[in-house]
C-alpha cells in the first residue's frame, strides 16, 4: 500500500561504480524468498534465503543455503526450539555469523520474489526463484546436498544461475512482424514474483506487472499465469495462460499462486497502469488445470470491496472441518477468511465468511498446523507495520503481533516472506526482513498459547545502519 520499496530504491540508488560489484558472501541484501527444510542429522535444518539486491548496489542477487546449526553470535547459536521464551523486553540474539560456504551460495538476478522447493521423487530437491529485474527470470537451482547448490542449465562449476534461468519477457516470439498490435509482444510476463510447484513438477509463476501490447504502449493489458516444466527448463507460448476470460473482468498483476488438487489459485494485485472500466477488482481467481485451463473468477471482490490482494494460504482438505483460504488484502489492510468448497469439482465455491483488521501492509500468509483439535494458526507478515501478526481462527482475532525488529522505526524492517519449522507442539517462524537485511526468528513455544510468540533472534547483519553503506561488504 505504501511505496516503501520504491523509496528505498530511490534513496539508495547512488551506487554507480562500473567495476564488478559481487554481492556480499556473509550477509543478506534485501532478503525476500525463504524456504526452510528439515535436514537429516541437523537440529535446526537449513534455511534457503534469496537476496533481492533491491538497491542494485551489487551486480546480482544471491541465494544462500544457511545451515541453521552453524549460525553464531556472541551468545552462541539458535536456542532450542520449544524452549521457554524470554520476556518481551529481552533483546533478541544477534546471530551475525552465517558461516555460509561458497558451495552454499549462488548468484541470481536482482529483485527476487517468492521461492519454492520441489521435493522431486526421482532426483535432488529443486528450488525455483522468480526475479523481476532485467530479463524477468525464473531460476532453477538444485539442492545437491543440504548446503550445496547448483545452477540448472549452467556449467557444473558455475555459481551464476542467471545463465540457466528462463526469461519470461525476452522471449523468441517478441516483435514478430505482422503481429496484430493488440497481441504484439505477447505473451510475456513482466515482473515475475510468486511461485508454486505441484508434486508432479509443474511450476506456476505469477507476475506483478500486467503485460501491455505492444510492449511499453500502456495499452491492451493482460496478465498470465505461467506454467513451466520443473524438470526441464523451457518456455513456449503455451506456457502462458491468460488470467482473464471475460470482458469486464479486471486486469491487474498477480501476486501469489497455490496449486491445489485441480485448481491453480491466484491472488491479484492492483495496477495503476491499467484503467479498468468496471468497479471490479482482481482479488482471487482460479485456473482449472483439468479443464482446458479455464479461468474462474469467484467474485470475491463483490463480497469484500478491497482494492487488491497479496499472499494467501489454503488449509488442507479435511472431512472434519471446513476448508479455509486466508487472503491478505490491502485497502483496507485485512486478512480475509474465505470458505473454500468443491476445489476438486467443476464448480468450486469460494465464499467470504470473515475479515480481520491487520497492521499496516499485510503481505505474505502461511499456516502453522496444530493437529485435528485446533485450527491452523495463520501467520501474516505486515510490511509497513514491521510486525508479524498471528491470527487464531479459534479465537477469531489476532492473538499476537510480534515486531520483527528491535528498532523503533517500524518501517525499517519490512517483513516479507515466511517459513515455518515445526517440532512437537512448538513452531519457529523465519521472516525475511526485506528492509533491514536480516531474517527474524520468532518462536512459538506452545502452539496452544500462540500469544507467547516472541522474537528470539536475528540472522545476518543489519543493512540499514545509519552511516554505513549497504554497498560495502561487511567482513566478519
Amino acid at each position: 500500500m505504501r511505496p516503501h520499496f520504491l523509496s528505498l530504491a530511490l534513496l539508495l540508488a547512488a551506487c554507480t561504480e562500473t567495476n564488478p560489484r559481487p554481492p556480499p558472501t556473509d550477509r543478506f541484501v534485501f532478503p525476500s524468498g525463504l524456504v526452510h527444510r528439515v535436514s537429516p542429522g541437523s537440529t535446526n535444518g537449513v534455511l534457503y534465503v534469496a537476496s533481492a539486491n533491491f538497491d542494485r548496489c551489487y551486480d546480482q542477487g544471491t541465494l544462500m543455503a544457511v545451515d541453521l546449526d552453524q549460525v553464531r553470535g556472541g551468545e552462541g547459536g539458535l536456542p532450542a526450539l520449544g524452549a521457554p521464551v524470554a520476556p518481551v523486553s529481552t533483546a533478541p540474539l544477534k546471530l551475525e555469523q552465517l558461516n555460509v560456504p561458497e558451495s552454499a551460495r549462488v548468484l541470481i538476478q536482482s529483485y527476487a520474489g517468492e521461492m519454492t522447493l520441489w521435493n522431486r521423487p526421482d532426483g535432488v530437491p529443486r528450488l525455483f526463484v522468480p526475479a523481476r529485474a532485467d530479463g524477468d527470470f525464473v531460476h532453477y537451482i538444485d539442492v545437491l546436498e543440504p548446503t550445496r547448490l547448483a545452477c540448472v542449465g549452467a556449467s557444473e562449476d558455475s555459481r551464476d544461475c542467471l545463465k540457466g534461468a528462463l526469461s519470461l519477457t525476452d522471449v523468441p516470439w517478441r516483435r514478430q512482424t505482422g503481429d496484430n498490435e493488440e497481441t504484439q509482444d505477447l505473451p510475456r510476463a513482466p515482473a515475475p514474483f510468486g511461485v508454486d510447484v505441484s508434486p508432479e513438477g509443474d511450476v506456476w509463476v505469477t507476475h506483478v506487472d500486467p503485460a501491455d501490447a505492444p510492449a511499453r504502449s500502456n495499452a491492451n493489458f493482460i496478465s498470465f499465469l505461467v506454467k513451466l516444466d520443473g524438470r526441464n527448463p523451457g518456455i513456449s507460448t503455451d506456457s502462458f495462460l491468460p488470467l482473464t476470460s471475460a470482458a469486464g473482468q479486471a486486469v491487474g498483476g498477480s501476486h501469489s499462486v497455490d496449486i491445489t488438487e485441480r485448481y491453480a489459485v491466484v491472488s491479484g494485485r492492483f495496477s495503476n497502469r491499467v484503467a479498468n472500466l468496471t468497479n471490479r477488482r482482481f482479488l482471487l481467481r482460479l485456473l482449472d488445470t483439468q479443464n482446458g485451463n479455464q479461468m474462474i473468477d469467484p467474485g470475491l471482490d463483490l463480497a469484500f470491496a478491497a482494492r487488491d490482494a497479496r499472499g494467501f494460504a489454503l488449509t488442507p482438505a479435511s472431512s472434519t472441518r471446513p476448508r479455509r483460504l486466508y487472503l491478505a488484502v490491502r485497502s483496507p489492510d485485512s486478512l480475509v477468511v474465505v470458505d473454500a468448497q468443491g476445489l476438486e469439482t467443476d464448480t468450486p465455491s469460494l465464499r467470504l465468511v470473515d475479515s480481520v483488521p491487520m497492521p499496516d501492509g499485510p503481505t505474505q500468509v502461511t499456516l502453522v498446523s496444530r493437529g485435528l483439535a485446533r485450527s491452523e494458526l495463520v501467520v501474516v507478515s505486515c510490511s509497513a507495520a514491521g510486525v508479524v501478526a498471528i491470527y487464531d481462527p479459534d479465537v477469531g482475532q489476532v492473538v499476537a503481533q510480534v515486531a520483527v525488529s528491535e528498532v523503533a522505526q517500524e518501517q525499517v524492517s519490512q517483513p516479507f516472506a515466511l517459513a515455518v519449522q515445526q517440532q512437537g507442539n512448538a513452531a519457529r517462524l523465519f521472516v525475511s526482513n526485506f528492509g533491514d537485511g536480516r531474517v527474524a526468528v520468532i518462536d512459538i513455544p506452545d502452539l496452544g498459547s500462540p500469544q507467547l510468540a516472541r522474537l528470539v533472534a536475528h540472522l545476518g547483519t543489519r543493512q540499514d545502519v545509519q552511516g554505513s553503506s549497504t554497498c560495502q561488504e561487511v567482513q566478519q
Partner: protein
Amino acid sequence: MKRFVMSLMVVVGALLSACTEEPDSLPTAGLSGTFDVALVAGRQLSESQREADLLFVTSADRNELRVLDLTADAVSRGYVRAPNPLEALSVPVLPRPQALTRDMRYNAEGSEVGGSYLFARSNGSAAISVVASNRDFLREVLRLNDPSVPGEGRQLPRQLLLSTGPVTAFAARGNEDGSSTLYYASREVTGARLWEVRVPAPQALVEGTETVQGGALVVALPPDVVVSSLLVLPQSGQLALATRGAVGTTGQVFTLTLPGGTLTALNFGGSQVLQLATHGRVSYQLGTDAPIQTLPAGARIFGVLDPASCGGVRFPCPSGVLAVEAATGTVARDFSARDPLDTTRGLYEMLPITAGLGVPMGLTLASNTELALTGRLALVGIVPLSNGEILVFDALGLRQLDVDTDDVPSATVTFVNPVGSVGIAGDITVDTAALTSGVTTNERYQLTYQGILPRMSNETAKGFVVPYAPFPGRGPVVQPGDFIVLRTATEVCATDLVVATVQPPVSPATQAVLTTNTPIPPECADFSIFTNFLVRAGGSQPLVISSSTAEYLGRVGPGDPYTATGPYFFHPDNYTGATQGVAVRFTVASRFTEVTPERGNAFLVTTQSQFLPYTLLVDTSIPDLSFFTLPGSVVEAKVGITNYAYIAYPSADGLLQMDLDVVVPTVLNSRGVFPFL
C-alpha cells in the same frame, strides 16, 4: 403503481446525485487505520446548553486516536484542534489501536447517558488505553497491563498490571460520580478470564486522590473458550457476553449477573455471535391511532452472527443480525404477523437480517431516526457490509425495510443460443401464482439442452465409469439415452455413443458403469489419444437444470414439471409461519413449438423476488469518495435535529458522515455524504 414508485425513487436518486457537486472535505487529520469509532456524548452544561458530542476514531497505523467535534454548525464541524490549531489533536495511545469502547449508563428513564472514559485496545495485546474523553482532558490517563509505559505523572498515563494474555473483548459502565467500571476478557495461558477494573473520575485519577482498583471476576465460563464480545446491559449488574471455541464447536451467548457471576444462556438460533448490541428505551406506535407503546431499555439483545463457524463442518452458517428477547433468551419475534391478543407481540421468530454477498462489519442501533423514503422510525439497525453497502433495517419490527413495494414475485423465460436470446412463453410455462414472496429469490435457472451432466465432464476413458449419484439425496443422474462424448484435451469425437444401460454400483462402490451399443468410430478408437469422455443429457430428459448458486438441480424433458422449494429469507406481511415455500415452478411443453433447441442452447427462467432491502450506497466515482468502498464500524449521532451515521472506512483511512434523512436507498449517493480524512 409499484413500478411508478420504483421509477420515481431511481429518478429522484439520480437527480439528487446529479445535482450535487463533489464533497468539499476539510483539511485532513492524516488518519491511517480507521478500524473503529466510538461516540462520546457531550456534557449537559445547563438545562438548555449541552456540549457537542465527540467522535473518536482509531488511527491505528499511527498509534493514536483522533477526535471529531460534532458541532451543530456543519461548516465548522471537524477534528478537535491541537494546542497548535493548525494541527488536528492527536491522542497517543497503545500501539495499533484497533477497537474502541466507551463507558455509558442508562438513567431512570432508560436513556443512554455518556460517561468519562474511552477505552482502546489492540488485537493480540494485553494492554488497554484509558482515555479521559471529555474536552478538559482528551488524553490517555491510564494504561492497563503494559509494563513498557515509561512512567506516571500528571501528563503521563498511570499504570495497572492485572493480566498478561491478549484482551479479546471489553465494555464499560459509567457511574454517576464520573468513575467508570471497565470489564474486559483476556485469553490467558490457563484459559479465558474476565476482569473488572474501577477507574476513578478523571480528575481524581490524575491528581492521585483515588486509585484504580481491579481484579479477576469469578465466573465459571465454559472450558476452552474465549470471550469474543462483551456488552453492558441497562439492568444493574448485568452484562452480556459471547464466547467462541475451538474448531468444531459453537460459541454461546450469556447474560452475566454480578456480583454472583451467574451465567444465563441466550439462544441465537444456535449460531455463534461476533458482536453484541442493545438499545435504550424506545417509544413507538403501531399505527397512527394506536396507543404509544414502550420497549424497555435492553429488552432485546442483538447479535451479529458469525458466518465462519457454526460447529464442525456444518456450512454455510447463517450470516446477519439476529435479536433475542433478554427476558426469555429466545429469538425475538418479528412484526410480520402480530399476536391478535397482544398486537405488540409478533407471532414468528425473526430471520437473520442481511443483504447481498457481504458480511457485517459493524452494528449500531438508533432510536427515533428519520430515514429517506420511510420517514421516522422508532428503532433502526445500521449494518455496514463488506461489499460496500450500508444496510438499514427496522430494529423494532425486526424485519428488513423493503423499498420495493411490489409484493408479488415474477418470472420471465428466455431462450439463448449462439445467435442471441429471445423471450418465450409457451415452451416453458412458469406458474407465477405459485411463486412465494419471501422465498422466491432473484435467481436464474438454466435449462441446458443436452447439457453436460455434473461431475461427468472429464472422465478417464478406461471403461465408461461415472459417479452414479453425484449429489447425495438427489438420486442417480445418468440415464439410458444419454450421450458419451469421447474427448482429448482440445477436441471431441464427432460421433456420440448412446448410453444403452446404466449398471448401478454395488455398495460401498459409488461409480456406475455405462454400456453402449454404438460402435466407436475408428478415428476415435485410440484411447491413448481420446483419453477422456464426458456425458451429455439425452433420451427423455435432455434438459439439465442448474442455477447461479447450484451446479445441478435436476433434469427434465418434454412434458415434465419442475418445482424448487426453499426457505424464507424474508417474512412478508401477513406471513403465516411456513418454513418453506415454492421458489419456482415451471413446466416444459410436451413439444417445443417456439424454438428448436440444439446442443448447448439453454432456456433461462429468471425469477424476481420483488424484494429490495434498504441499502445505502456511496458514489465512489466522485474523486473525494473514490476510496470509500469498504466500511467498518458505525455509530449513529443526532446533531441538532439531524440523524447522521458516522462510518469508519478503513479502505479510505477516513470517516464518512451520512445524513440518514438525505441519502436515498439503492442509488449511488454523493449528496448527504461528507468525508473526513
